[in-house]
């Protein structure tokens, strides 16, 4: 975290290791890699099309990924705490289908929204119950719930798409200080979560749990409670992201956010979150989200098929974890 702070009294002797240089500390951070990649990607993309030097173009492109990016921020915290959640994209679909179905069948909008949010929370709670209460591995549990949530969405919505009322549509077109609203939300959430993770005891304990859960419990940290909060937060974020997506698309289908788990995990990994927990930052995920937008927009501008983009995302995911692992194992020595 705080890299450049004064050394306490140096006590030489056996057991003392040499202090690292400031450069070493800054350079051997995955976020640095993300930032470098981001700059490279912007330079490359601007060769491709001058659009990329137009900030509003990038902002507009970002609205396509902003919902996933918001969830990815929470996912970053979940992964740092040593767990994972692969179900948020399916959660987005189910909570939003419930919301859309409720409002289509005449429930007043505020209540419909409440239904969607509660559904998202409930899905987060089910994950938490299986992982924390029953002590099952989150990786398999959330594969199960991913399938379950998506399937339930399919049952509720069938093959139809549920239309949103006109006034609800287009939050991504609303500008807040010249920034699309969803992007603004992403930035605000990044700031808030970034401060929480880096500056509060709650954030500190997330790292401690992810580094050594047993030791955390021995140190009096309420590990189960913190994980519960994270899974609930995940569910809530997914429900909100789902509704933002519904507003952007104007209608809801069961396949809303399909495959989003890849993008979310990818943002976290590209941002240097350590897959085995205990390391990572919101800043990293924030940068990675922009990186991903520049890359995928660049590919769209270059007229690459969406399928090729899928391939690139898959490759990026694998490269990102390999690189992050290497950086951390090097930093450890």
């Amino acid at each position, binding site marked *: 975290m705080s890299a450049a702070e004064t050394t306490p009294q140096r006590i*030489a002797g056996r057991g003392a290791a040499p*202090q690292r240089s400031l450069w070493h500390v800054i350079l051997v951070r995955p976020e640095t890699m993300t930032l470098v990649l981001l700059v490279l990607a912007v330079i490359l993309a601007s060769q491709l099309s001058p659009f990329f030097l137009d900030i509003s173009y990038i902002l507009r492109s970002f609205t396509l990924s902003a919902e996933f990016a918001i969830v990815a921020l929470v996912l970053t915290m979940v992964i740092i705490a040593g767990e994972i959640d692969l179900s948020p994209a399916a959660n987005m679909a189910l909570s939003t289908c419930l919301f859309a179905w409720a409002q289509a069948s005449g429930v007043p909008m505020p209540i419909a929204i409440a239904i969607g949010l509660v559904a998202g929370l409930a899905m987060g709670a089910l994950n938490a119950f299986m992982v924390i209460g029953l002590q099952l591995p989150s990786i398999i549990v959330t594969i199960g719930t991913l399938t379950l949530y998506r399937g339930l969405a399919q049952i509720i919505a069938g093959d139809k798409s549920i239309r949103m009322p006109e006034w609800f549509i287009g939050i991504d077109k609303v500008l807040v200080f010249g920034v699309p609203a969803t992007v603004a939300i992403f930035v605000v959430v990044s700031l808030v979560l970034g401060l929480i993770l880096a500056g*509060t005891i709650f954030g500190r304990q997330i790292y401690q749990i992810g*580094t*050594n859960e047993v*030791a955390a419990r021995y140190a*009096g940290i309420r590990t189960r409670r913190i994980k519960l909060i994270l899974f609930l937060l995940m569910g809530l974020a997914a429900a909100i992201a789902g509704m933002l997506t519904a507003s952007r698309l104007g209608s809801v289908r069961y396949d809303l956010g399909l495959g989003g788990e890849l993008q979310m995990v990818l943002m976290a990994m590209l941002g240097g979150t350590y897959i085995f927990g205990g390391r990572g930052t919101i800043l990293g995920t924030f940068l990675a989200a922009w990186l991903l937008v520049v890359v995928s927009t660049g590919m769209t501008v270059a007229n690459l098929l969406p399928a090729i983009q899928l391939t690139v995302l898959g490759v990026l995911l694998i490269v990102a974890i390999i690189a992050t692992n290497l950086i951390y194992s090097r930093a450890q020595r």
Partner: protein
Amino acid sequence: MKKADAVPFVSARGISKSFAGIEVLRDVDLDLAKGEIHALLGENGAGKSTFAKILAGIHLPTRGTLSLDGRTIEVSSPVAAQKLGITLIHQEPISFPDLSVAENLVLGRSEDGWFSRVPWAEMTIEAQRSMDLLGVHIDVARPMRGLSIADQQMVEIARALASDSRLIIMDEPTAPLTPREVETLFGIARRLRDEGRTIVFISHRLEEVRALCDRVTIFRDGDKVATDTIGNLSDVDIIRLMIGRPLKEYIHKHSAEIGEVALEVQGLTLPGVFHDISFSVRRGEIVGLGGLVGAGRTDVARAIFGVVPATGGVVKVDGKAVHIDEPEEAIALGIALVPEDRAAAGIFRTLPVEQNITAAVPDRIAPTGVIRRAIERSLAQDSVAKLRIRLASLNQPIGELSGGNQQKAILARWLLVDPSILILDEPTRGIDIGVKAEFYDMIGELASQGKAILLISSEMPELLALCDRVLVMAEGRLTAEIARSEASQERIMSAAVPRVEAAA
């Protein structure tokens, strides 16, 4: 007892081993004869286990050579050791719980190709025969999961015999066993010796070594200090060789005023783990809790601290009955626990020393929930100065510190809580002798500040030197309470070894 042969069976010359630049074994020369049971003795960390693991191919020596029947050998892996007829039997035997006993017995023995057939029928028959030969009754078709430790050891021994091992190394095999199981094991060990095999026996228990072994080698701080016939050494000699100085010097004098009862435990029970544990610790008092590994001492500490709560009994803090389900609640009541396994339950290896020290006092470093770096830093700095923790920077990951300094940082974490009751579970395990002495001073100092201290230790001298009273556990029960004036190694040991009646 047999005489050592003229030509040694196994001969080690100049064996040295370093881990991360720290030498844990220095120039060890040792000869093992055919048909002898040879004990390796020494304190924790003296190097005896490292030596055994080098023989068994788990570690490669940094320097030195091994020879077998006069020929130099290269023991590059456990499989290579097996081929040479060397088997190491771990205290907690290696097992594949989902495979059958028979499969566990033969796994890794054959060098046939990947797709060669597994001869189930022959395998089962042969496995059953080796178990019968040992005189133990285990159904070899059942899965390994659920077998007692003693039975798992028997499977390992059967394994060694099936591959015709001529050198069998047993690393503290008796610690988790009942006396009856120990007798069975010894019987088998003697038989194997009489067949001309060589057995290396690692143990802490002198009486066992006397009962079983022909010769003994003593290690201290990575050096071999003596090899002799067991009959030539008295217990006092052995202890002196192990600790390098007379026992007396260890005794630490602390003169704390003993006050009110701070912690009282009545009838604490966790079925299958410990039963009906009652004791009390007063302010200013250091109460030792001795016993063998697996006696349930750590479980009692964990129950008091709320890690795995007991199902029956009462815990009283300052006379009031309390209910503790989580460590957090224990801490709020002024209880601290320095856990036994530092790596698993103590440190956050990759996090800065600073964060490790302040982990248990969130309210002090973040009164409002937001971390106040200045407060955190000054708390950590004070601790470092007070406990003389050697480090380069408070930002350094704690994993880079030496074991002793890590342990000091964990102790510092708990002192920040300012507990009135301090439970120390094997606080000096794996720590340099020099740092140990510092720890002893600190523990005495804490007691004289009026803290009630419960000290769990497997090291007798530690218990004898530091404690006002020593409690002893065996097989989940409290078997003795010995006042300082009456405490002796023998009394503690005799209470720690489970009585035959107690063994089911």
